[in-house]
């Protein structure tokens, strides 16, 4: 019985009680000074907790937060930074390779008599597969 009353006492502070529970608890509170003291002690602890006004964050919280947020946004993520550095390095190599290819193709076209894929890459008597497949190309050159 004591446990039930104690549970009701705690519950009454945080949740609504049924009418039966309320009348049971009220009767016990009327008759037991110990229970009343317990109830008052609980209420006081709760009041102290509710009044324990908490200090705010350190000054200029919003400003510091905004600075951090927007400076984080400006910094690229580590993986993205790696991709960016690679793409920047390879961009120059790719650009050089394209120029060499154009020069080579122009040279071959200028020197060749026939306009064909073979001539584009300085090959003669080889198909387009040979031009792009080194193994086929090796077999072809051995046969010749």
């Amino acid at each position, binding site marked *: 019985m004591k446990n039930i009353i104690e*549970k009701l006492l*705690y*519950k009454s502070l*945080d*949740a609504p009680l049924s009418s039966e529970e309320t009348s049971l608890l009220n009767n016990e509170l009327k008759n037991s000074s110990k229970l009343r003291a317990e109830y008052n*002690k*609980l209420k*006081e*602890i*709760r009041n*102290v*907790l*509710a*009044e*324990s006004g*908490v*200090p*705010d*964050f*350190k000054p200029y*919280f*919003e400003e*510091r*937060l*905004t600075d*951090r*947020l*927007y400076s*984080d946004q400006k910094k690229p993520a580590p993986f993205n930074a790696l991709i960016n550095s690679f793409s920047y390095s390879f961009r120059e190599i790719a650009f050089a390779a394209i120029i060499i290819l154009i020069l080579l193709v122009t040279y071959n076209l200028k020197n060749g008599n026939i306009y064909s894929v073979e001539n584009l890459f300085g090959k003669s008597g080889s198909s387009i597969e040979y031009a792009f497949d080194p193994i086929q190309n090796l077999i072809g050159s051995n046969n010749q």
Partner: protein
Amino acid sequence: MVTASIPDKASDYELVKLAINGSQYAFTEIVRRHKTKIASTIHGMIGQCDQVDDIGQEVFIRFYRKMTNFRGESALGTYLTRIAINLSLNELKRRKRRNIFSFNQLVEEGLDIADPSSFEAPDDNINIVRMAVQKLDPKHRSVIVLRLIDGYSTEETSKILNIPIGTALSRLARAQKKLKELIKPYIYEL
């Protein structure tokens, strides 16, 4: 960056939508409205220390990065408080791991008050109760902080912690009993 003026009575949800669209002002307004309660939650959970500010910043940064996930189904304050509780619990776990390798465990029981008679002013009751809250284990501490310090209803507390109301009530009862035991030697008049 959108810097258009924002009406004072704009709802939290409206502010979030504006912030998603790039309004820095709207985001700052969200921070301004909720920072005190978030500070209270974190302070209650981890005590007064430098990490309170760091965790507070982290709460808003996490929210900023996942703002688009906020659908307004729960109040923004509740949503932010949930992040604050989770980050505070992570900090408490980190501290626990650190304490395993130190002697701090030895002073876990009871309050660290060298001279109880030095507490006389009414404000000292607040300090003693705060110290006692820090001695509760995290699951009991979180219900006390949310329900009794931050003033959330029992239902809101259970939603923030993702536990049934019955569990929240039993944790509250157990936590208050433990608090009473802890402060008994220091605050006789309570």
